[in-house]
């Protein structure tokens, strides 16, 4: 299944769950995957050796694959980050532009840049109905 493929490693590495809003100045750091059951606010930071999943609005800074894993991904219910990092790649929000996607998205490294796509891919979602 495409979903499992996208979240490569979510099954076999340890995962920590964080419940609630991660507010400005707060941070979570873990060697495996991190799942946040809430928002990550601007000024908050999540660092994970593996993947990061945010079940709310991601407005802060997230670093996935922090030990160098370029396969790591970041998924959020709403992806509006200040900055995303995957392994050694950095993507920041476009200056001044407000872009409000109305669906979950996934960020991953492809051909040396961080790309963001709908998650799950819209084609697949239609296919299921």
């Amino acid at each position: 299944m495409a979903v499992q493929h996208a979240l490569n490693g979510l099954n076999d590495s340890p995962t920590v769950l964080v419940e609630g809003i991660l507010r400005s100045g707060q941070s979570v750091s873990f060697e495996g995957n991190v799942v946040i059951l809430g928002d990550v606010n601007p000024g908050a930071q999540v660092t994970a050796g593996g993947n990061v999943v945010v079940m709310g609005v991601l407005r802060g800074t997230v670093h996935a694959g922090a030990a160098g894993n370029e396969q790591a991904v970041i998924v959020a219910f709403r992806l509006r980050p200040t900055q995303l990092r995957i392994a050694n790649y950095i993507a920041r929000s476009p200056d001044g532009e407000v872009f409000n996607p109305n669906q979950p998205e996934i960020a991953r490294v492809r051909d040396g840049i961080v790309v963001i796509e709908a998650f799950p891919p819209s084609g697949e979602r239609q296919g299921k109905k």
Partner: protein
Amino acid sequence: MSEVIVVTSGKGGVGKTTVTANIGCGLAMLGYKVVLVDADTGLRNLDVVLGMENRIVFDLTDVIEEKCRLRQALIKDRRFEELFLLPTAQTKDKSAVTPKDMQNICSQLREHFDYVIVDSPAGIEQGFQSAVAGVEKAIVVTVPEVAAVRDADRVVGLLEAKAEIRDPKLIINRLRMQMVQRGDMMTLEDMHDILGLELLGVIPDDEQVVIATNRGDPIVINENSLSGRAFKDIVRRMLGEPVPLMNLENGEGFFNRLRRIIGLG
């Protein structure tokens, strides 16, 4: 049952002292016994805003240093029988008051008052940490600006982590109605999205607040002002009354959105 509440914000100058003075007066006007504690040692303002500066003989630091008894440092308001101020020192710094001192003072005060309201200094360092040490509830004040909301968010996290104060209430101060109408200001929805706190009230940006403050008469005493009414409504909400947010703008949609945020819609 008495309530011990801190008014805090992270960012400076957003209206903590103004809110403390007005809520205090508003509660005293309804007959509650209230003491306001100035925790902004070295930069005290609460005495000035309440028009009590000239009556200070002893202060919080004198109580801590056992130069006087707590009761001797309390100043009675000239307007309201049941309103008192515990001023702090202007000539010392934040190190004069420790978290332990504040715990001690607050637990003594709560024996004698319905409401103990602590005016916190700006920042998140020593002064803030002392201000929140003896309280169990918090009101977070912000203004509709990204930086202030960011600092408020920081403070909400610290209140929970350091003082075990959960679910503080939010007051949004200095809302400029024309700017909101033009779409040039953060909306209440924007702020609610980030902070996720219950909204205790919204106070318009109002020059009457400044005039009243300079006179030493908090605006809540003034029946006719919009901001005075906003403070009265806040006091009633603190007492548990479901008071709808006043229509600060003529747009009906805006008003309905407010109702939704405050949980009345």
